[in-house]
């Protein structure tokens, strides 16, 4: 595979190294000459000095034969435009962009960027999972479905404690996929399973129903 990585910052640099270890053909484009000097010591001919949004630069590095194009700069604007140029001028089939402002996810999707990685959300969700007080954590958004996986811990004030799974009225289009017991056994829930305080649940829900599910499982009013 030939993969173009735009931006030789911490993420772009580490990504390029990891792709090279996989045995892929990778080229990391960095427009700042000083930074390019630093990364080229390590990356050698896998680095290139230039602006990854410029048609001429992309022509020079053979973007038309790239299998994937990944924009990892700290500027959402640059990442978006680079991916659009790659897609529309060079027909790259897979464009992936780092997003720094969570607001921009919908825009990137509408404009045809194939995949996005929202650094802010990834970090927030990682931190939230480590926070004992955080009752509902979105874990993974399921692309194209309008639904997400979330993680909830049943707290002692929840009204579902002692109830069977089948008796719980979940929000529409939601379902409980896994129950992680107090004793850390993972079970798939049958209708007969009774929920207990301290159980953890992995559920699929629509993001707009987060509040409702949180209220149901953690006793928090909403």
């Amino acid at each position, binding site marked *: 595979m030939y993969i173009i990585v735009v931006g030789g910052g911490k993420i772009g640099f580490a990504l390029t190294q990891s792709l090279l270890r996989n045995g892929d053909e990778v080229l990391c484009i960095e427009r700042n000459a000083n930074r390019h000097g630093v990364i080229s010591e390590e990356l050698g001919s896998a680095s290139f000095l230039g602006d990854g*949004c410029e048609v001429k630069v992309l022509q020079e590095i053979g973007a038309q034969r790239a299998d994937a194009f990944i924009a990892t700069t700290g500027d959402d604007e*640059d990442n*978006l435009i680079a991916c*659009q140029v790659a897609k529309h001028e060079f027909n790259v089939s897979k464009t992936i962009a780092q997003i720094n402002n969570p607001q921009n996810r919908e825009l990137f999707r509408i*404009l045809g960027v194939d995949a996005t990685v929202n650094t802010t959300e990834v970090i927030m969700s990682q931190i939230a999972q480590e926070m004992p007080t955080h009752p509902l954590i979105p874990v993974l958004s399921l692309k194209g479905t309008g639904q997400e996986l979330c993680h909830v811990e049943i707290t002692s004030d929840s009204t579902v404690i002692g109830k069977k799974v089948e008796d719980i009225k979940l929000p529409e289009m939601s379902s409980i996929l896994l129950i992680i017991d107090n004793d850390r056994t993972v079970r798939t829930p049958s209708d007969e399973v009774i929920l207990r305080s301290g159980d953890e649940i992995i559920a699929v829900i629509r993001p707009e129903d987060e509040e409702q599910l949180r209220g149901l499982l953690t006793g928090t009013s909403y």
Partner: protein
Amino acid sequence: MNIIIMGCGRVGSSLASRLDNENHSVTIMDLDSNSFRRLPENFKGTALVGSGTDQSALERAGANNANIFIALTQGDNRNLTAVQIAKHIYGIPRVISRVYDHNRASIFEKLGIETFSSTGIVSNMMHDIISEK
């Protein structure tokens, strides 16, 4: 008409002032409040500190009711991102972007974005002036 202009440089401020004189409702945005000193004292429109690529700032600028959005900052990518937010998120019917790089401009023309390149306009004019001699 309700017009939002992003970037209060020389071009942005003089365009805002002209449209304001023609009694359009003009909102001009810039990241730097100092830029608004370029506006005439009798400017009746709104000057708003904020980025045209930030959706909350765009909402404050009235993007939900705007007829035209014009991006005039120095950054091609910033301009192109802002006009695409204006067009696709807020449904503003007419969006126009300054783009210095004419290769990039032609790609986005194909995607339905009106662009103009002062680089191209000025170099053509210069060429015409010289050729006429």
